[in-house]
């Protein structure tokens, strides 16, 4: 019992805190008022029910009928962020949906469009200057990290191609592909020539 309750409590608190942080989201969630979304995650033993009102309540058990029911694997959960992926997911057999799909897609859009001004919220606890500095710091360290990742990737690629010659370079591959294409062309020409010659022989 307590584990399930911890899961639903955790998800519920997280969702509602996120919604509260974005003033527009609260209005948007009101458009779903009274709807119930059932999400069956294949890896979890119990479904999750999302009940929409002025906020979201998450239950592990609900006796009423859900307006929309989704069956999905944990691994595909992140793709739900983009509601245009729904049809693709259904075709791939990763997602099964019944009921009113608008409930699910609206919910996904609300979560995707969450626009949270972290600096504003942080400033309430730390003051404006510290919040600004912290976020600036976070942004610049993110940029630094991305930059270094790119350099590292480049260096590793160079080492593999040039130093230990484990993989061919881009130019080599292009050249090889060209040669293959040329060989294919020659093969075709040879086949046609052979066909022509053998026909002459018959005549």
């Amino acid at each position, binding site marked *: *019992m*307590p584990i399930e*309750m911890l899961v639903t409590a955790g998800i519920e608190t997280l969702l509602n805190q996120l919604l509260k942080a974005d003033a527009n989201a609260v209005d948007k969630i009101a458009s779903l008022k*009274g709807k119930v979304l059932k999400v069956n995650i294949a890896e979890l033993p119990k479904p999750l029910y999302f009940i929409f009102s002025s906020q979201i*309540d998450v239950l592990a*058990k*609900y006796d009423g009928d859900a307006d929309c029911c989704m069956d999905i694997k944990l691994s595909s959960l992140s793709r739900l962020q983009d509601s245009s992926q729904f049809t693709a997911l259904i075709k791939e057999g990763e997602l099964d949906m019944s009921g009113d799909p608008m409930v699910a897609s609206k919910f996904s859009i609300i979560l995707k469009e969450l626009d949270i001004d972290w600096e504003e919220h942080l400033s309430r606890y730390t003051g404006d200057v510290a919040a600004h500095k912290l976020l600036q710091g976070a942004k610049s360290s993110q940029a630094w990290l991305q930059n270094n990742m790119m350099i590292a990737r480049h260096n590793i690629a160079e080492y593999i191609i040039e130093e230990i010659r484990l993989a061919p370079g881009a130019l080599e591959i292009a050249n090889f592909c060209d040669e293959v294409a040329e060989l294919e062309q020659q093969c075709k020409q040879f086949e046609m020539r052979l066909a022509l010659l053998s026909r002459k022989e018959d005549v």
Partner: protein
Amino acid sequence: MTDKSNNTTHFGYKTVESDQKVDMVASVFHSVAAKYDVMNDLMSMGIHRLWKRFTIDCSGVRPGHKVLDLAGGTGDLTAKFSRIVGDTGSVTLADINDSMLKVGRAKLRDRGIVGNVTYVQANAEELPFPDNHFDLITIAFGLRNVTDKDKALASMFRVLKPGGRLLVLEFSKPDSEALNKVYDFYSFNILPKMGELIADDGESYQYLAESIRMHPNQETLKGMMETVGFESVEYHNLTGGIVALHRGYKF
């Protein structure tokens, strides 16, 4: 339980006149109302929220239902029920103690929970509602304080619709001896100290610990529910039996 022959009942470990218990319980809750939520979180280390979540999961409540949250105190369950039953349903928060009711009402209004919630000051033994009225009745951590529990259960049975259910969330008896020891130490040594320190009211929390020990255990309460007419009565032990959720149906 009330001993009707000489009209006395227990108040914690003390024995008092039956007609005094109501006032004595009332004074406990008048004195803790303001700090009730903080103390609940502290004393149970937040676990009371999980117990209440479990109660909601077991409630089977749906949009349009009529819910009675008895001894609802500061309205934790009412808030959630109000959102689930929606505009077509209704939730009645009833408490015998007007201090608790006021704190509950102020809290729920601050959170924007209005419209489908009504507040009634009522004694669980004499519920002021028509017969067959509610789809669900919950009483969370309240039955313990009622003077005549059998009368209260019968009164709940009367106002419940056929097909409706009663959920009783209440302290009970831990099922392992080791847990019992730790729990006893906690409730008689640490709890009143915490009450003293935070709510400046050690006595009320001493009463809490004592009243929990005097409350009927799982099987006894199940029997009491069956006696007044509830059917398919079952209970779940939560956190090793420190708390138990009893569920019974009226058919």
